[in-house]
């Protein structure tokens, strides 16, 4: 972990924070030696002289003096030593450049591949990062390194370069074509002015033919023109100038696991550019996919990744056959052009099955079908095996299959011999159909044919006259033998198809079941934390990996869930996670960025319609520190990530929604409070003020009493406001104190004398009522508010009853008035804050706070309170229910005497 190559997370974080991209200028050449580097350095010097802060990131002068002369005077950022060394002076030191923060960096050879252990495998990725931090970059590139032209160039130069630059890079760059006539270039080559690596000399001799150079030059000029075109188009698009697109062209390219599929993808890209059409690379999963070897899976994944790099969308859909799947997809995608490769299958195979191309053309109506030759074989990449080794198990089956087939035939032969006396010869031939069909249906074509052969031999030898020989006397019997073989062929075909469908269905249902259970687990999560933990646990279980989930924050990503539990990650992992968040791309082991990390991080993106961006990043790693994921599990991971993102997005949405609701509720309360305060404060204040004014002129006891009453009312209201504020602040210290309910009732009656004037109080609290354990102050306030409320609504002159009853499991303390009662159906609503019930007499003066306080205080003490109506006499009854655990058992007299 202490290698010098370890990328600096700080630099990454810093870069991520920067806004505004730098501009890229590419000096594009048709071939090495046209003078791209020279041109770049010259222009760099001009910029420097114009006052721009220019440094050289990396320049290969290849010892040429004219080029070296231009380097002099430029500040050069020294290169980073590469572990293992060997590769010249080392790689461009991206961290040093980010540290130095020039305005413009000169970076030679954009297509260069970095030494392993670097932050990015490719130099263009370094450049992307520089651009992302707002630094301008000049770079050089040869046309043969452009991804989409790779095949074309290889087809006529017979040289395939492995270092390619995605077209997307060119499309965002200003392109200057460095052009010299082919003759001049050939002269320069002869003069030894063109640098060619020693080992490539022979291969390159053919490359520099005049016809090749002419073609390359044309390509370069065309590509540059295209880039300008694309930029223009982008501009038009950005400014919503529609109408410049070719109408509705959509291209679908079908890709297979074979290596020539990459050529198809590049061709699709070129066609899409020419037609300015969106395009999709689609892989049709058929039963064959289950037989893929790892290399084939990887090839397929590479091909789809290439399509994605070239700007196409990619998808994989299961179907019974390629034609069926492609047809269904192209209809769904409203494709206008389909590109498929010419099959590399044998002539015989195509005769027997009909070629995919033929059937496709017949099936698909007015869609143009482009069939491209399988061009990959002639320019195959070095180091790749020529042909796949022939499959053994899948076609020929296991030896055991043949043994079973033979045994079945033998069994029929034996039983046939035993039954010979009883049944006719022809029926014995029918008997032989049983083992043949069994073998063909169960073990496939070859085993079926084998069984058919064995059956016909057995039939011939043991039953057909002359028995004991393999000769056939009667020509009719030849037909029996042919029928047996024919049945084997037909049955095996049906059997194989059924089996394959079943296999596919099983795989697919396994995946679907996994996805369904995943989705179920996610739905069950009630909070964000729970959801994240569920995502981690489920992905870990389904893919057999370790998982972590990080959430972006201003202080960098932080770990919010993990399975198995994990509490820290290394700097490099944090850096990779941050990178994945910033770039919305996978990072870490097995991706293109920060591969030194043990973990692979995939961003969880919010749906494009929301503004939440990346919701989190899921990291996966293997217990044994191996590659995080098998390639065939990639589609499953993608589906899981999709579902996880949707679930997280939904949760975020719900939280926002709840916040909005809560804010709405707060606003409602606030305005209710304001109106209540203004009403309930002003009314008594107005009375007090006018009474005091009046008293100055006319000293009267009545006026003084009015002032006193209103002041008390004001006091009660303010007390309630304070109580409510304490409840809402959540700052209610609850005391547990032994309380005599009789004392509590008497105290409350004492304190509400003013509002209970004119009402007799009937105290029905038995002297032997057990003591309870409650907060005396809260209980007191509950009771005075209930009494207050009763005094407000009871008919004048009627008594108010305080009654305590014992139920088996509680004490019920009620305040009962004789008044209009509570409107039907409003028994619960009376306890809501600022509810003043509509209808009849219930809208009398009052704060609307009192009963809400009763409920809040009761709940704070673990009590419940309910409102009900009584009929005889009519009135309201409010009951506080004190549960048994709050009741103190009677105390032995002996203890106290």
């Amino acid at each position, binding site marked *: 972990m202490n290698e010098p190559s370890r990328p600096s997370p700080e630099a990454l974080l810093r870069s991520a924070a920067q806004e505004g991209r730098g501009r890229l200028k590419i000096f594009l050449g048709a071939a090495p030696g046209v003078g791209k580097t020279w041109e770049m350095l010259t222009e760099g010097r001009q910029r420097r002289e114009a006052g721009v802060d220019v440094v050289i990131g990396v320049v290969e002068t290849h010892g040429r003096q004219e080029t070296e002369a231009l380097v002099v005077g430029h500040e050069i950022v020294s290169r980073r030593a590469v572990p293992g060394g060997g590769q010249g002076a080392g790689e461009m030191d991206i961290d040093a450049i980010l540290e130095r923060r020039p305005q413009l960096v000169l970076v030679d050879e954009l297509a260069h591949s970095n030494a392993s252990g670097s932050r990015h495998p490719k130099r263009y990725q370094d450049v992307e990062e520089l651009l992302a931090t707002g630094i301008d970059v000049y770079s050089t590139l040869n046309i043969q390194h452009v991804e989409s032209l790779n095949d074309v160039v290889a087809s006529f130069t017979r040289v395939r370069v492995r270092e390619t630059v995605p077209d997307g890079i060119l499309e965002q760059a200003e392109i200057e074509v460095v052009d010299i006539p082919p003759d001049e270039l050939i002269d320069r080559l002869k003069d030894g002015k063109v640098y060619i690596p020693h080992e490539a000399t022979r291969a390159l001799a053919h490359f520099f033919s005049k016809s090749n150079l002419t073609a390359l030059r044309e390509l370069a000029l065309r590509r540059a023109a295209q880039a300008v075109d694309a930029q223009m188009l982008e501009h038009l698009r950005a400014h919503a100038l529609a109408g410049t697109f070719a109408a509705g062209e959509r291209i679908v390219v079908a890709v297979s696991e074979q290596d020539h599929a990459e050529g198809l993808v590049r061709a699709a890209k070129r066609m899409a550019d020419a037609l300015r059409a969106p395009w999709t690379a689609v892989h049709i999963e058929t039963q064959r996919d289950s037989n893929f070897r790892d290399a084939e899976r990887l090839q397929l994944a590479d091909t789809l990744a290439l399509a994605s790099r070239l700007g196409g969308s990619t998808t994989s859909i299961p179907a019974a056959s390629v034609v069926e799947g492609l047809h269904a997809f192209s209809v769904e995608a409203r494709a206008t052009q389909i590109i498929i490769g010419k099959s590399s299958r044998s002539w015989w195979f195509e005769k027997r099955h009909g070629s995919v191309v033929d059937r496709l053309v017949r099936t698909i109506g007015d869609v143009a079908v482009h069939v491209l030759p399988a061009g990959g074989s002639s320019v195959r990449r070095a180091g790749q095996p020529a042909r796949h080794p022939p499959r053994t198990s899948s076609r020929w089956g296991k030896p055991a299959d043949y043994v079973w087939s033979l045994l079945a035939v033998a069994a029929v032969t034996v039983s046939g011999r035993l039954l010979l006396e009883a049944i006719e010869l022809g029926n014995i031939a029918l008997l032989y159909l049983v083992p043949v069909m069994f073998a063909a249906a169960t073990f496939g074509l070859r085993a079926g044919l084998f069984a058919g052969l064995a059956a016909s031999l057995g039939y011939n030898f043991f039953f057909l006259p002359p028995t004991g020989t393999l000769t056939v006397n009667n020509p009719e019997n030849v037909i029996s033998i042919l029928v047996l073989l024919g049945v084997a062929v037909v049955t095996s075909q049906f059997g194989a198809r059924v089996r394959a469908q079943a296999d596919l269905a099983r795989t697919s249902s396994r995946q679907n079941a996994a996805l369904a259970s995943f989705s179920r687990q996610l739905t069950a999560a009630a909070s964000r934390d729970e959801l994240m933990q569920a995502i981690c646990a489920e992905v870990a279980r389904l893919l057999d990996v370790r998982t972590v989930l990080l959430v972006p924050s201003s202080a960098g990503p932080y770990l919010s869930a993990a399975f198995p539990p994990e509490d820290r990650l290394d700097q490099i992992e944090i850096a990779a996670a941050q990178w994945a968040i910033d770039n919305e791309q996978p990072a870490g082991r097995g991706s293109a960025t920060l591969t030194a990390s043990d973990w692979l991080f995939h961003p969880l993106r919010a749906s494009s319609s929301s503004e939440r961006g990346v919701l989190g990043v899921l990291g996966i790693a293997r217990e044994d520190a191996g590659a995080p994921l098998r390639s065939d599990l990639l589609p499953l991971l993608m589906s899981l990530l999709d579902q996880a993102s949707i679930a997280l997005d939904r949760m975020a949405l719900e939280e926002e929604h709840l916040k909005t609701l809560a804010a709405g509720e707060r606003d409602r309360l606030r305005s209710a409070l304001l109106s209540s305060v203004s009403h309930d404060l002003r009314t008594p204040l107005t009375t007090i003020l006018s009474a005091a004014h009046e008293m100055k002129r006319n000293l009267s006891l009545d006026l003084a009493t009015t002032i*006193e009453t209103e*002041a008390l009312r004001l*006091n009660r209201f303010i*007390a309630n406001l*304070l109580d409510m504020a304490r409840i809402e602040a959540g700052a209610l210290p609850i*005391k547990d*104190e*032994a*309380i*005599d309910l*009789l*004392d*509590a009732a*008497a*105290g409350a009656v004492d304190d509400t004398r003013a509002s209970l004037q004119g009402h007799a109080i009937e*105290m029905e*609290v038995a*002297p032997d009522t057990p*003591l309870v354990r409650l907060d*005396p*102050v809260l209980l*007191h306030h509950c009771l005075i508010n209930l009494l207050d409320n009763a005094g407000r609504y009871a008919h004048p002159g009627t008594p108010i009853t305080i009654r305590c009853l014992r139920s088996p499991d509680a004490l019920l303390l009620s305040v009962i008035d004789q008044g209009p009662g509570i409107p039907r159906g409003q028994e619960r609503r009376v306890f809501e804050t600022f509810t003043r019930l509509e209808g009849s007499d219930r809208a009398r003066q009052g704060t609307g706070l009192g009963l809400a306080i009763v409920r809040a205080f009761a709940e704070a003490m673990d009590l419940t309170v309910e409102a009900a109506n009584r009929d005889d006499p009519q009135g309201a009854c409010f009951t506080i229910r004190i549960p048994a655990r709050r009741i*103190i058992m009677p*105390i032995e007299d002996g*203890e*106290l*005497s």
Partner: protein
Amino acid sequence: MTIRNKVLVVEDEPQIRSLIQIAMARTGHATSEAGTAHEALERLRKDQPDVVVLDLGLPDRDGLELVPIIKRNTSAALIVLSAREASEEKVAALDLGADDYITKPFDTDELLARVRVALRNRSARGSGDPVVNVGDVSIDLPERKITKGGREVHLTRREFAVLSQLAKFPGRVITHQQIMAQVWPNEAERHVEYLRVLVRALRQKLETDPQRPQVIGNEMGIGYRLKMDSNPAA
């Protein structure tokens, strides 16, 4: 004929000070005033008041700190003024030696009644009337003789202990802790529920209507007092 007593009002709100002063003057007491703890201590030394009315919320010092100082250095009766919610504060002040408390907002009649009780208890200290009468209940502490409506009432040892605590300072609030400290010498045995049960038993024996206690009043969350205000003779 009322004896002219000196009352020191320690309160930072001038309006409340002047109101109290008016009320005191009505009953013939002379008042001096202090707006801060600092002033209060000065007045205390110079004026030698008989009663101090002390607001616990003072600008320069916690009023609670003044309670022991006042009790230690003077023989004045001390009545504290406190906000409604602060029952701990009241208990603390009482346990520190304050004679009584009154809750803001209060009416002046109530304050005057408390002052009267405090003054009486102050003068009763040492000599005093050995027999306390509350309604038709008469409590003769030295003789340990309690009668209700002329008939003798028998109390248990602990009932008497509780009642005697209240009767020593009739009309003054006695905190639960103060009562229990006398009734249960062993601290581990002091439980408010025991006290409540004893008070309930006392009420059964002394009150005419135990559901409307007129002899032993409950001060919610603080303590008990012998109700003297109901006695027209007081």
